[in-house]
């Protein structure tokens, strides 16, 4: 409720049009190295999606509406005809559940924004735009700038990443079939590479990694014993259950 009052109050910040434009531009430039990193994965995702039965229109539809690389790679991996809706939705939620923590961490810095601005802006929140937006917020805060969270910077950054993702997944869907079987070139190894680098980013010591090992072991066993995509929910559920059990609730 307190936040609503603050949001409703007139903002004292001096946001002129040219200032907004230069902040937006700063975000666009900041996005360039990440954009370069996005392109190969977008192409691989688009190519694999088409191999799994997506049409060239359905690929940008999924990447444009969902905009979550990890969950899209998982969905394509699980995709069948017809797609197993419940399994895919459950996995999408699990893969993207980190957004809940990310959004909660960002929330205190969004108090100067009305909800009609904050809610659409959060649609564009991905790992990279979140991390870079938060780092920028902390930088601006330490030089006592208001507001610490620069919405035009965040939008310049995240809109470029969004456009790159949708455009290049679509390009992968169109060009993929012409490239032939990308597996023979080794491009499929980009999958585990991306996931391993993402895992390294989440690494906070061996203790946090123990549930991952449980998940991996159960997933491998299930994969060998049961046909289909069950290895994924089985491994993930086992890992999460292990993490839950391993945490003592404060007495």
């Amino acid at each position, binding site marked *: 409720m307190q936040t609503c009052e603050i949001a409703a109050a007139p903002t004292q910040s001096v946001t002129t049009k040219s200032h907004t434009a230069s902040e937006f531009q700063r975000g666009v430039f900041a996005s360039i190295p990440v954009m370069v990193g996005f392109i190969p994965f977008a192409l691989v995702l688009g190519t694999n999606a088409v191999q799994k039965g997506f049409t060239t229109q359905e690929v940008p539809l999924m990447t444009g509406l969902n905009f979550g690389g990890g969950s899209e790679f998982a969905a394509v991996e699980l995709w069948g005809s017809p797609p197993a809706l419940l399994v895919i939705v459950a996995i999408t939620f699990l893969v993207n559940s*980190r*957004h809940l923590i990310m959004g909660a961490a960002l929330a205190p810095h969004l108090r100067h924004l009305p909800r009609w601005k904050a809610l659409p802006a959060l649609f564009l929140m991905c790992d990279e735009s979140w991390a870079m937006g938060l780092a920028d917020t902390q930088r601006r805060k330490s030089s006592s700038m208001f507001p610490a969270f620069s919405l035009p910077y965040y939008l310049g950054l995240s809109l470029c990443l969004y456009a790159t993702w949708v455009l290049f997944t679509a390009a992968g869907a169109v060009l993929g079939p012409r490239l032939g079987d990308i597996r023979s070139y080794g491009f499929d190894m980009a*999958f585990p590479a991306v*996931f391993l680098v993402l895992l390294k980013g989440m690494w906070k010591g061996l203790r946090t990694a123990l549930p991952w090992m449980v998940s*991996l072991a159960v997933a491998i066993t299930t994969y060998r014993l049961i046909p289909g995509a069950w290895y*994924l929910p089985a491994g993930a559920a086992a890992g999460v259950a292990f993490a839950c059990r391993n945490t003592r609730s404060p007495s």
Partner: protein
Amino acid sequence: MNSATLLTIGAMAAVTYLTRVGGYLFLRNRELGARTKAVLEAAPGCVLIAVIAPDFASGNSANLIALGVTLFAATRLSLLPTVLIAVATAGILRHAAHLGGG
């Protein structure tokens, strides 16, 4: 486009958007329990590693060596060089295994 595909994509998009706004709407003023925190922290990693489990279960030695090299690269390098090394290693090893009749 068929309706099952559209429905699945729509459901994915809805669930993903809920995770994006959920933290902002519901968690901003709330203290999380230790177990909830632990589950929220562990879930993404558990899912990511389970997705690539079939790669670890591969019986193909070229794939397994490439995966080992990728794992090593991932611990030391950033995203782009890791991916380039992974793709190149897998491509070269598979080609070599093919030439060697393996």
